[in-house]
């Protein structure tokens, strides 16, 4: 064959893959979405339930999800600062949203909210929390609470009861220590901010949600004796050995898993850990229990957290596509499919859950807990998690400052003094997230 013919044939063949692109006048517009970490199983779930389902419903958009791991928040900051970043922005909470909104990195969602009816589909409290300067910037992806997970099987074997007051909790913890168990399965090796889970718990359980609300509104300082008592109590638990020897060496999942294997007695942590119950409890033939964290008087405290939020990048090339993705996510259809396989991370604040159907494989404990939480929130009986309601520098300082108190490098009063100063500076700079009024 002549060389020229061969060349033409080769070029012809090589251009075949590109033919399909030329044939359609209009391609599906890409929408990209950076997600945090997810187990391989859950990555598949998201691919199937969100990406493929959405793309099938909306062929004019091509959604793709990129799993960035636990470094997502750092990568996102840098990307947004440089004006790039994904179309659908996943942030770790309202305090980050305030800063991004102030800088003009996020698109206001009010028009989309009215167009798609989000203002009626979501619980009003969460719409409030996603606002900055009166405009809506973020939709809460999951709301969660902190509580006490425990190993029901181990409890029954030892004749223990889930504690309701702080005093009961301490007695139980001492007994567990006596039996060689680590009272709290806790660890921050892979996520240093886990420290603030415990600070949130203690502030709400000892000082109480009313006091926390007053401090967030600036009515009382963070150096108030109620807060000093709370931090002292948390330091006392550390000194008594409730957190064990390996707090800084265990990852969050390892720590939670140790309750399932019976090495630890309880895990004061958040409802996001429901996604780990199957692996560490059910697989070990242990039954998991969950109660609201004990308080001074005995009524359970549900510190409210917005685990993550979705926003739209102000620099997005396809904001309508991103809005369509959000609309699909905040639907009872998606709630049902995703929560049937992945509990704890997708507790979307939908106002009407009547059409939601979860598969029978879902732990009844999960469904029960979520219902209790929803009614508590609806009635205004909730507390405040630090990552949702504190401004960024204050929240960042809290994580390291608590370690200093635990390791005896700083007194609780000095820690709270610095916290208060940082909080005031943040508030003056306009970085404080929205605090809904208390019922």
């Amino acid at each position, binding site marked *: 064959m002549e060389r020229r013919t061969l060349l033409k044939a080769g070029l012809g063949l090589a251009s075949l893959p590109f033919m399909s692109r030329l044939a359609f006048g209009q391609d599906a517009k890409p929408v990209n979405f950076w997600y945090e970490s997810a187990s391989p199983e859950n990555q598949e779930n998201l691919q199937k339930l969100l990406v493929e389902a959405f793309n099938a419903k909306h062929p004019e958009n091509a959604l793709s999800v990129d799993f960035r791991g636990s470094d997502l928040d*750092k990568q996102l*900051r*840098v990307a947004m*600062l440089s004006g790039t970043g994904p179309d659908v922005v996943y942030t770790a909470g309202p305090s980050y949203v305030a*800063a*991004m909104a*102030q*800088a*003009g*990195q996020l698109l206001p969602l009010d028009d989309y909210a009215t167009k798609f009816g989000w203002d009626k589909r979501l619980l009003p409290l969460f719409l409030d929390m996603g606002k900055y300067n009166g405009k809506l910037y973020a939709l809460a992806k999951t709301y969660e609470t902190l509580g006490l997970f425990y190993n029901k099987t181990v409890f029954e074997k030892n004749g223990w009861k889930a504690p309701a007051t702080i005093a009961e909790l301490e007695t139980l913890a001492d007994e567990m220590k006596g039996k060689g168990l680590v009272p709290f399965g806790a660890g921050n*090796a892979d996520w*240093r901010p886990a420290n603030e889970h415990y600070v949130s718990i203690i502030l709400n359980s000892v000082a109480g949600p009313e006091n926390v609300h007053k401090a967030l509104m600036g009515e009382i300082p963070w150096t108030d004796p109620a807060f000093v008592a709370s931090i002292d109590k948390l330091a006392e638990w550390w000194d008594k050995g409730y957190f064990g*020897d*390996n*707090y*800084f*060496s*265990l990852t969050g999942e*390892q720590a939670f898993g140790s309750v399932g294997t019976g090495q630890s007695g309880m895990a004061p942590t958040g409802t996001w850990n429901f996604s780990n119950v199957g692996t560490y409890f059910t697989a070990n033939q242990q039954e998991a229990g969950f109660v609201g964290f004990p308080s001074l008087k005995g009524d359970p405290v549900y510190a409210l957290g917005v685990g993550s939020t979705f926003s739209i990048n102000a620099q997005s090339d396809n904001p309508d596509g991103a809005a369509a993705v959000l609309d699909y996510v905040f639907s009872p259809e998606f709630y049902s499919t995703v929560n049937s396989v992945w509990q704890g991370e997708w507790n979307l604040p939908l106002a009407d859950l009547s059409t939601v159907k979860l598969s029978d494989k879902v732990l009844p404990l999960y469904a029960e807990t979520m219902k209790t939480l929803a009614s508590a929130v609806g009635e205004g009986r909730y507390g405040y998690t630090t990552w949702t309601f504190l401004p*960024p*520098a204050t929240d*960042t*300082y809290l994580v*390291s400052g608590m*370690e*200093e108190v*635990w*390791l005896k*490098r*700083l007194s609780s009063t000095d820690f709270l003094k610095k916290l208060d100063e940082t909080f005031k500076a943040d508030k003056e*700079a306009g*970085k404080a997230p929205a605090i809904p009024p208390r019922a």
Partner: protein
Amino acid sequence: MHWLYVVPTLIINFAIVLIPALATVLLAFCNFDGLSMPTFVGLANFEALAADRVFWVALGNNIIWTVIFLIVPIAMGLLAASMLLIARRGSSFFQIVYFLPVVIATVITARVWQGMIYSPVTGVFGVLKQYGIAIPNPLTQPSLALFGVATVDLWHWWGFLCVIFFAALRQVPQEQIEAARIEGATYVQMMRYVMLPAIRPTITLLMIMTVIWSFLAFDFVYILTQGGPAFSSELLSTLAYRQAFYELNVGRAAAAALVISLFGLVGTFFYVRIQAREGEQ
């Protein structure tokens, strides 16, 4: 006309190095949250840094880090390089083995050390604990955290110095070595009177680069401890990073960056002076 040949490089240098550097210098005197417009505040950022206890801890840690890296990897590198010189046959194999840690991504190295060596649950330390040798995880002790991270960085770094010293040692004129051997020099005498003086420029250069690089140290600390526990392993770079991206205080981060550069400048000044002196000789 000749200087026109440097124009392309100068343009790149300007855009990527000079302008951002100038911007950092300017921002150090401003209040900037990384998002809205910066406002001039004079020396306020430096005053705030000086008043910040954590800044002094970080500076102290950087100095400790520099001292460690000036002594340990250079000594190890020289020793191993001289061994490689003696044992010529296995030298390529050992060079590869020593250099391998340098090439592995720092994140992977850090995670391996954190999870497979230091962890009292899943690592070598855990296995040792079962046999009764209870070594605490250095990353969890404020007094040991910096040294724990430095160990990982040393493991990753010393091979680089070894390879460079080996290359330098091979350049030592054979006549000098022969002469010393004929006169019956022992290994120590050979090193002290022939080898080390011959490669002195290389050693000097690497020592000064070590000073500069030590003030830039960031990745291992950030991945392993993020400056914790309780700021005990905080370095100036992790301080700057946290202030820029978490506390949204880019002005103060720029001020910390200037402090880092100051130490680098001091090192550079000494290097240029030594080079000039050697050039005259």
